[in-house]
């Protein structure tokens, strides 16, 4: 389990080397065989910089294009993720505590989970019309299931001996949630949150690709595509990849901090 610090940093070095090599290979190929469709990474990087990150220091180096497109996207995604996480954990805990409720709801949950999330978007377009409400609703309804199902499973599978201990210690409902069921389900909850986070990113972009959107990273993509501005398309793709990576890393760090305190 415990690896040495040196071994860990060797592993990190290796991972970054693979990435760097891939980029270098891409650079070399696009330089030797120029193509309009595949610009070299250096051009993409320069374009990303001028497009979004060459603003004044007072605006954290963000250009107006960045504040008008990246921030709204992030806001939609974060709102959706937070609502999905809270709703998923709350409903999942309730379901996990009641054997009957779980048995009754399980088929519905499995069905809801099996529906490919982007397929729900047209439903919300009809219900809520185009706009931020529709986008956030699409994100929430896609991202809530993994958290909900994982939380319910985690709570349901709490060690029965630990439940007996809570009974003998006469912990009340709130104390049982706080000291037993939630900490015991936490690894499963985080497994759900990680799945939800990637779904949030997918749904954020997808809902912004639709007409009726005036800003966002997804909008930047369709807009650039309609102007045949391939460099911006590539820049948006790189930005989305980086965003997904950073958000996942943040979530992992939170998880590590919360779970580092117990083997279970």
């Amino acid at each position, binding site marked *: 389990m415990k690896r040495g610090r040196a071994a860990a940093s060797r592993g990190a070095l290796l991972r970054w080397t693979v990435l760097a090599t891939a980029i270098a290979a891409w650079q070399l190929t696009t330089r030797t065989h120029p193509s309009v469709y595949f610009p070299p990474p250096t051009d993409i990087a320069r374009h990303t910089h001028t497009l979004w990150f060459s603003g004044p220091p007072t605006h954290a180096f963000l250009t107006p294009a960045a504040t008008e497109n990246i921030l709204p996207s992030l806001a939609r995604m974060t709102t959706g993720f937070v609502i999905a996480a809270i709703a998923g954990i709350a409903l999942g805990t309730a379901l996990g505590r009641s054997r009957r409720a779980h048995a009754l709801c399980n088929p519905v949950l499995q069905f809801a989970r099996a529906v490919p999330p982007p397929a729900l978007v047209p439903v919300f377009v009809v219900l809520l019309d185009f706009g931020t409400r529709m986008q956030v609703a699409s994100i929430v309804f896609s991202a809530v299931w993994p958290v909900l199902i994982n939380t319910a499973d985690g709570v349901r599978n709490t*060690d029965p*001996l*630990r439940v*007996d*201990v809570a*009974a*003998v*210690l*006469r*912990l*009340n409902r709130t*104390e049982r949630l706080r*000291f*037993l069921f939630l*900490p*015991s389900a*936490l690894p499963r909850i985080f497994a759900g949150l990680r799945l939800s986070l990637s779904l949030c990113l997918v749904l954020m972009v997808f809902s912004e690709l639709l007409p009726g959107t005036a800003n966002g990273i997804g909008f930047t993509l369709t807009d650039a595509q309609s102007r045949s501005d391939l460099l911006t398309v590539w820049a948006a793709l790189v930005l989305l990849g980086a965003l997904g990576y950073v958000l996942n890393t943040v979530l992992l760090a939170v998880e590590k901090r919360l779970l580092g*305190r*117990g*083997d*279970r």
Partner: protein
Amino acid sequence: MLRLDSLGQGYGDHPVLHDITLTVPDGQLLCVVGPSGCGKSTLLRTVAGLLPVREGTVSVDGAPVSGVPDRLAVVFQDYGRSLYPWLPVRENVALPLRRRGLGRAERREQAELMLERVGLRGAGRRYPWQLSGGMQQRVAIARALVCRPSLLLMDEPFGSLDAQTREDLEDLLLEVHESEGATIVFVTHDIDESVYVGDRVVVLSAGPGSRVVLDLPVGLPGKRDQIATRGLPEFVALRAEIGRAVRS
């Protein structure tokens, strides 16, 4: 005082305990022994109010048991599962103090005092899984004692510890029993252990439908000592008698 009156217990069609009648006076340390699978744990879980009584009655201080009785504590065999691994040792021990309405500082102080009492001074900030098995079971004992229980149930508490640790904990148990004066029901499959720690030993027959086959007071002279006591002729005789009852 703990009273079991013609207690019958079982799961579905499967009888586990049959017609158990026992009275445990205040302050007694009663050992329950029997072959494995005879329902010792079921007996304990029934007294703890974790299993509903099927036949007969169980009463603590005259009140029939329904739900977990007041001032009851339990030490389980599996310390690794019974302690909450996500809470530091001190928080584990302080957990039962919450329902007493004490402030945070006071809970912490009492937990630390109890940890000191079981020989774990300074271990409060560590996590259970950072401690050895014997130390973890000491934490479980501290958690059980912190509320000053009048009835303490122990389900093979030392069964998974090595011999030396087990002896240390047996002596710790005798010491706390003397100072706290709680009634203790101690379930074990180890005949030597039952004679060494018990004031009285009850033997259950092999299941299904176990009953009491022997009820024996342990009158050993002098203070218990791991070497000397186990060599006494009285100790050897009691052990033989209980051994025969368990095998019968």
